[in-house]
């Protein structure tokens, strides 16, 4: 069994908040984040807005800036702890072995630089390639993402391209150096559904072709289910459930995942009001108050007294062998990924998978 490409262990991130009266306080944004990703696999990272998805992506790339910072944990990439690397070493990895694209296509490209400049610099930052060859590689990358007339596109400025084209260009830039890992932070959220679907398919195909692993950040469950191999569900800075995408989406074990799936518009009866999870995502708590009870408990229909007192342990330790055995869905996982949940009362399913009950 190979060592995973990426392994995030017990990652804690805080944001320092300036308080006029109370003094500065650290807010716990990511808490004991724990997941791993195999080479060439696709991971969907989902959760409501503000739960820390972008921060996870930025943390892996070492792009967190004050007031945010990492306080604990390890990020192993290819067996090397990124948190121990200096800036120069990280710079060598960024854009070469690990790449990232961001949400807003209108803002990610520099408005005053031509596309060719922005692509060539991305290549030449890592490989001493002559300009001509770099240009050829850039044109190929644009064509791979379905852009017509790449030579013409290269000579244009971002404002001459539509939003969808800009995002294709951004993704092409990210994939220029055939990274081992691409982190896509909701790159299609701002685009129309058709464009979104095309881009998702192209990225998926390209990653398979190049052997790149992909972390796709999204809050669109349907999209993730069609794209990803595995899924991590985040809530309030924690991963509350993860596993093979089919298993998690068909038989979610965390009440929050269940709520998310029920709230998704797809497959819901027309005319009926869309079910919602009551309440809102809590704001990140001060570090001193973090870890008091399950963060989801106030919104959870299954919460018990215990949920308000102690926080469920991270999944790695929590799911016992017996629980895992009761799972009908585990055979979906082609790799070792198993469905894991961070909950005192995970949902269980009867043999036909239709009814649900609460574990005692």
């Amino acid at each position, binding site marked *: 069994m190979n060592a995973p490409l990426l392994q995030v262990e017990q990652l804690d991130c805080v944001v320092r908040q300036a308080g006029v009266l109370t003094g500065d306080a650290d807010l716990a944004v990511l808490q004991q984040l724990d997941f791993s990703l195999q080479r060439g696999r696709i991971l969907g990272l989902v959760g409501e807005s503000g739960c820390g998805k972008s921060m996870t992506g930025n943390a892996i790339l070492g792009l967190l800036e004050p007031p945010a910072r990492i306080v604990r944990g390890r990020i192993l990439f290819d067996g090397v702890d990124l948190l121990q690397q200096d800036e120069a070493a990280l*710079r060598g*990895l960024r854009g070469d072995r690990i790449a990232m694209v961001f949400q807003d296509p209108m803002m990610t490209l520099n*408005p*005053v630089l031509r596309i060719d400049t922005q692509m060539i610099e991305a290549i030449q930052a890592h490989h001493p390639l002559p300009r001509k060859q770099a240009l050829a590689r850039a044109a190929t990358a644009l064509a791979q993402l379905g*852009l017509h007339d790449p030579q013409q596109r290269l000579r244009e*400025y971002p404002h001459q391209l539509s939003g969808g084209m800009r995002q294709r260009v951004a993704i092409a830039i990210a994939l220029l150096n055939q990274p081992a890992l691409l982190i896509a932070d909701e790159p299609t959220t701002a685009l129309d559904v058709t464009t979104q679907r095309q881009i998702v398919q192209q990225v998926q195909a390209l990653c398979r072709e190049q052997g790149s692993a992909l972390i796709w950040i999204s809050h669109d469950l349907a999209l993730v289910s069609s794209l990803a191999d595995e899924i991590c569900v985040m809530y309030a800075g924690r991963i509350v459930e993860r596993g093979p995408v089919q298993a998690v989406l068909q038989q979610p074990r965390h009440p929050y995942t269940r709520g998310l799936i029920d709230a998704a518009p797809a497959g819901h009866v027309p005319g009926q009001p869309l079910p919602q999870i009551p309440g809102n995502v809590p704001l990140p708590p001060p570090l001193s108050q973090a870890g008091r009870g399950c963060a989801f408990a106030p919104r959870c229909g299954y919460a018990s007294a215990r949920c308000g007192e102690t926080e469920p342990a991270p999944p790695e330790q929590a799911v016992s062998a017996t629980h895992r055995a009761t799972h009908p869905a585990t055979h979906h996982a082609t790799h070792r990924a198993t469905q894991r949940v961070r909950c005192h009362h995970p949902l269980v399913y009867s043999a036909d998978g239709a009814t649900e009950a609460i574990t005692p």
Partner: protein
Amino acid sequence: MLGMLVLIARRLGQSALVLLVMSLLVFVGVFAIGDPLAILVSPDATPEEIARSARELGLQQPLWQQYLLFLQQALQGNLGRSFAHGEPAMALILERLPATLELAISATVIAIVLGIPLGLWAGLRPRSLSGQSIMAGSILGFSLPTFWVGLMLIMLFSVWLGWLPASGRGPVQSVLGLPLSLGSSEGWRHLLLPALNLALFKLALIIRLVRAGCIEALRQDYVRFARAKGLHPRRIIGVHVLKNLLLPLITVIGLEFGSVIAFSIVTETIFAWPGMGKLLIDSINVLDRPVIVAYLCIIVLLFTLINLLVDLLYVLLDPRLRPSTATPQRAGT
């Protein structure tokens, strides 16, 4: 290319319009409100001379004809003779123009060369002691009157330290037909203090602008994306941030060039720099009005020209404004 030409033509038209309006204002000031004979004819003139000038100025004609005549004369550079020097006023001003331009351009260069690095430094470390000191200095530079700073410079560098001359222009050599003082070290020594004095206000402005622009740019997604590409900070600052800063910077520097020329009036007076600003003050003091009117016409022309040039430069530099023949294309499948 055609779009560009149309654009230039339109801007030229606008500038011509502004010039026309300004000339009307000058005309109204001189001919309608003031007494043109008192303004444009020497007080020691004999009655015959005055009568002749009145005829030349067409004062017996209706006002609109007088205006046309004024325009015609102005276009020929004929705005009367200086009472004090006996020379045509326009020629007198133009003779001093190179000295003023030399001073103004040197000041602008100093402001840019010092302002951009200082502004970047302060923008990259806004909370550091050095960053805040630069900012405090820039605020001070804004509030100090130019003449006051000039005085302090003279006191420090000329009187106490004795390093640099306090007044006058050094020897000039003809460079491309223009008399400039940049050819000799003595010329440089004379230029340095006045140029520094004139630069200070613009320096403060550029520092502020660059710092704010830098802080703003660093927050943008394209800088984050550039970092995610693994670019060296040198390239991110030097290319991605700076190129975005350049556009507003050039606009402001260009537009402020007019005010540099205006403020050179003060600096030239303090440092006895023989430019057209000093000539203006001397003329005001002896009521040499033809020179004042000529100065006014020249300065209006300069301002209009500067605005035109900045506009065109802006279009040239900003890809978003450049008229393009290509229409935005659709994404492929």
